[in-house]
């Protein structure tokens, strides 16, 4: 007989210590990125090859700044959770834990750096 109720298993108190959170986080960030990717390409791509003055002026405007910062943050959180599934498939043992930790750290580092750069230009 099972000692856990169905509800407890769903909210993540089974042996995996997590329920549907991972799938749900990927679903939410996917829908967000569906909207953010086209907006980001419009806000970012024209700036490649532009002059320094144009670039800093561009990312000081609200729309490009907010869209680019959101794109960086949400996409890196999506990457953090997505690459975890890849690592769990191919790497085992302590190496798996190490790789997941490295990728979590990398994701936050990229996200924080990107948002810092945008904030510095915008403010």
């Amino acid at each position, binding site marked *: 007989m099972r000692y856990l109720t169905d509800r407890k298993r769903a909210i993540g108190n089974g042996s995996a210590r997590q329920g549907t959170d991972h799938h749900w986080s990927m679903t939410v960030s996917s829908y967000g990125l569906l909207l953010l990717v086209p907006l980001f390409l419009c806000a970012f791509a024209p700036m490649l090859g532009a002059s320094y003055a144009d670039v800093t002026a561009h990312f000081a405007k609200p729309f490009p700044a907010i869209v680019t910062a959101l794109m960086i943050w949400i996409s890196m959180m999506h*990457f953090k959770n997505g*690459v975890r599934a890849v690592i769990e498939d191919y790497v085992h043992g302590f190496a798996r834990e190490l790789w997941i930790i490295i990728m979590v750290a990398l994701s936050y580092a990229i996200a924080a750096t990107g948002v810092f*750069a945008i904030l510095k230009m915008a403010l």
Partner: protein
Amino acid sequence: MADVNRGNRPLSPHLGIYRRQMTMITSILIRITGVALVVSALLVVWWLLAAATSPEYFAFADGVITSFVGDVVMTLSVLGLWYHLLGGLRHLIWDQAVMLEMDKAQMLGWIALIGSVVLTAITIVLV
């Protein structure tokens, strides 16, 4: 002697023995593009940080990203981004328990493959 034939038994079919299928290739490509896009993210964030730092550093980073190699990497990034988006959209559709029939699932795969090329061309022309 319960297991005399160890090592010489027929194995269950693994990746190497399957005929390449469209749904399989398109799924693997989502993983590859998803992981590869972190390189694009690194480059973009580096470029933004350079722009936020100084004109000299920006000139260096911008020179790297707009060089020939940089252009190739950025173009592949856009292609990978659109492919990952369309392939992911396919999963969001499948999550609603629709379009799961073989022919429709394959059609979605073709849409992702061809659509990503078309959207990349549009992106390059328009921006």
